[in-house]
């Protein structure tokens, strides 16, 4: 085929001028999301790369050593509290940062993960530059089960098998990748090594080429796993800001579920439901919703389902019940059978039981 004819054909298909489209697309990004992308870039500039401004304050040029947030809670067989405190002391700053992350999560949701984390954030940003058509959709997988199955494996089985937790760590890979891009020798050599190549493949598959780029955070990140437990536990507390749904306002248009980068929003009975085990409070669903059915707020002060008031013969509807947790009542539906045993549930329980038994047996040895 003549290349000129192809070019003409492409021009014919394209109705508008391409440059205008790019500007339009950029303008279409909601304000909060622009702020979020900026925060991620800022955090990654100060935490990674040739500058590594924040790590250098404590004399490190990457996120390892004293800054490591991922290693101190590993359980080695027969470990005592003394050993644990040795691990804690070896990574003092990492432990403090980890505690800070958990505390902010309790109050404001997973701010670190969504707004600051350079490791998940850079993968997300680079994924957002690619077209959604060419990606792998991980969001529909049972992410809570996979995440905690891997988390248990990471905490208990990996130390017992002697696999270094550092060999599957994005907190090494991303700094090294940035180093390699800035021409540093260490980074290049890491990426060409076998460990580096495996990690790079993970980063590409679960980050850049994953839909919305947060699959690594969903499945493999131990910080995220611990963080989301806190997120879920704190969801009912009166001061906790979370992404909440006003069920009566939701029209079931499912735009939020499509745009949610963590796959935390699921349409249950045509109403958006936020899974606090995986929500990152990135605020995108709030920006996208035309009906103000989602908001990042603390729980309302008024009683749940409080009765309507009638004032001067006009019905005043209750304020929205901002619900963070949605549990489908099993009792109400008499016809529906209780959850049946499936292959997935057997697998999950097996993983859970092995982890528990290894911990119990290990503590006796």
């Amino acid at each position, binding site marked *: 085929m003549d290349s000129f004819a192809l070019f003409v054909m492409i021009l014919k298909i394209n109705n508008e001028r391409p440059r205008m489209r790019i500007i339009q697309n950029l303008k279409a990004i909601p304000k909060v999301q622009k702020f979020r992308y900026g925060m991620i870039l800022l955090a990654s500039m100060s935490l990674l790369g040739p500058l590594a401004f924040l790590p250098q304050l*404590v004399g490190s040029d990457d996120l*390892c050593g004293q800054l490591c947030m991922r290693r101190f809670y590993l359980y080695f067989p*027969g470990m005592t509290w003394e*050993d644990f405190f040795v691990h804690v002391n070896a990574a003092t700053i990492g432990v403090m940062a980890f505690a800070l992350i958990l505390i902010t999560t309790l109050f404001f949701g997973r701010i670190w993960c969504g707004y600051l984390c350079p490791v998940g954030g850079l993968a997300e940003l680079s994924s957002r530059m690619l077209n959604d058509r060419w990606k792998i959709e991980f*969001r529909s997988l049972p992410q809570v089960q996979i995440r905690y199955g891997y988390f248990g494996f990471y905490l208990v089985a990996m130390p017992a098998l002697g696999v270094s937790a550092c060999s599957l760590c994005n907190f090494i890979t991303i700094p090294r990748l940035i180093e390699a891009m800035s021409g540093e020798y260490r980074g290049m*050599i890491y990426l060409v090594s076998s460990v580096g190549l495996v990690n790079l493949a993970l980063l590409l598959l679960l980050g850049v080429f994953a839909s919305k780029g947060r699959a690594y955070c969903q499945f493999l990140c131990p910080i995220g796993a611990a963080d989301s437990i806190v997120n879920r536990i704190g969801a009912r507390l009166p001061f906790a800001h979370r992404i909440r749904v006003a069920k009566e306002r939701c029209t079931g248009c499912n735009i939020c579920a*499509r745009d949610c980068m963590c796959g935390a929003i699921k349409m249950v009975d045509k109403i958006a439901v936020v899974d606090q085990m995986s929500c990152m409070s990135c605020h995108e669903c709030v920006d996208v919703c035309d009906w103000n059915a989602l908001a990042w707020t603390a729980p309302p002060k008024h009683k749940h389902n409080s009765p309507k008031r009638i004032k001067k013969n006009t019905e005043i509807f209750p304020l929205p019940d901002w619900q963070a947790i949605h549990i489908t009542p099993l009792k109400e539906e008499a016809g529906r059978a209780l959850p049946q045993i499936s292959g997935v549930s057997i697998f999950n329980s097996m993983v859970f039981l092995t982890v528990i038994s290894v911990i119990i047996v290990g503590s006796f040895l």
Partner: protein
Amino acid sequence: MLRSFLLLFLILLNYTVEAGPRYSDPDGCLSCHAYEGLNFIDENGVFRSATIDASHYASSLHGSVPCKDCHRKVIDYPHKVENTEVDCSASCHIEEPSEGVKYSHDVIHEEMDKSVHADGWYKGLTGGNRLQELEEEQDPSCRRCHSNTAYIADAQLEKFKEAFAHAETECGNCHQGKAWMGQFGGHILRRFIGRRWNNIENNQLCIQCHGDIEAMREVQQEDEKTLEKHPPSERFVQSSQSYAKTLHGRLIAADSEFGASCIDCHAPDGWKHEIRAYTDEKSASHPDNLGESCGQSNCHGYTKKPGNEGFTMTDMHSLSLLGLHSFAKPLTDKDLWQSNWFRSMWPLMAAGIVFIVGSLIWWIFYRTDKKILAILGGSRFERVMIGRKPKKSKAKATARKPRVEKKVVPTPSVEPVGPATITKEASEPEAEKTLKKPDEPEA
């Protein structure tokens, strides 16, 4: 007038006498060696200095030991260089007051004799053979690591002064007597305050030699059984470089007390001189003993218990993780462009270019406001997360179905399966699962 002048003179004289500290020199060596500029040029044409700064010596570790206690063969004057030989394993003349036993470095020498550095000199050390040793000997002698450093390290001086100021009241209640306080009070306080060296300095000692890669390449290691000598492995040559990249090394470099220094793992017990090869069964770094040596106090205590074999087998001098092997020899073109890992980068890069260019073109020319589904797992997402019934998402799937069927048509056995699944799907929700199967290979 004269009287008062004389008195003033006496006071001044007294002052000048008191000002200069006096150093004990029973052998009278300092009467010559204290002179500045006592220099000579030796047989090899090297400029040497024989001057001994009396104050410097007196404040050193051996400051209270008279010269002839070590330089025993020096009897008459002038003496020859050969006569100044020192035997570090010989007993010293200092007696501990409580036991009355003469202290000796022989214990350390005996321990050193078992180690990999056993061939190092410990006697016959003179000023003359210093250069000869450096050039000829592979194993370190006592003096290569231990110089006669200051008795109290500079870093600890303040702390020591503070403690010494009230030692007479604190310790002196029980330990009375001038000899005790003068001679041993300081010694015990010094030990009490803590290690003379921190871990960084400890490691620096090992790295002085082991950090020199070119020198380490020339080391000849001895096989224990056959006693044959062989050149060292690359792992041995690069050991200090690879150590610096591990968590142990990094923590110490950051001045954390939780890093493990070289001796902490290689000679944890005794006088810290028994560094054996990891192939030696008595070695602390032998695979069988790793549980004990990793599980020392304040380290990985759990390794003494079973189930941690995998943890202890972590290679702390691994060349592989950071590709340290290539750090010593700069990468050649062959290493870089022709390595298998590098070759495997090409398909990744190709895929990346296809993705980036493809999606750029898509973004500029084809992007519409319609919902875009991911190629892999997009339909599942629609079904599970959005809750859309499979019928609608099948609109696209049905358009593609004929392609599959065309391939299937020539084989008669598969044909009945197709229609059978479609009929089930309409009636029961469970049949969805069977229906998916033809979809998945497409995705």
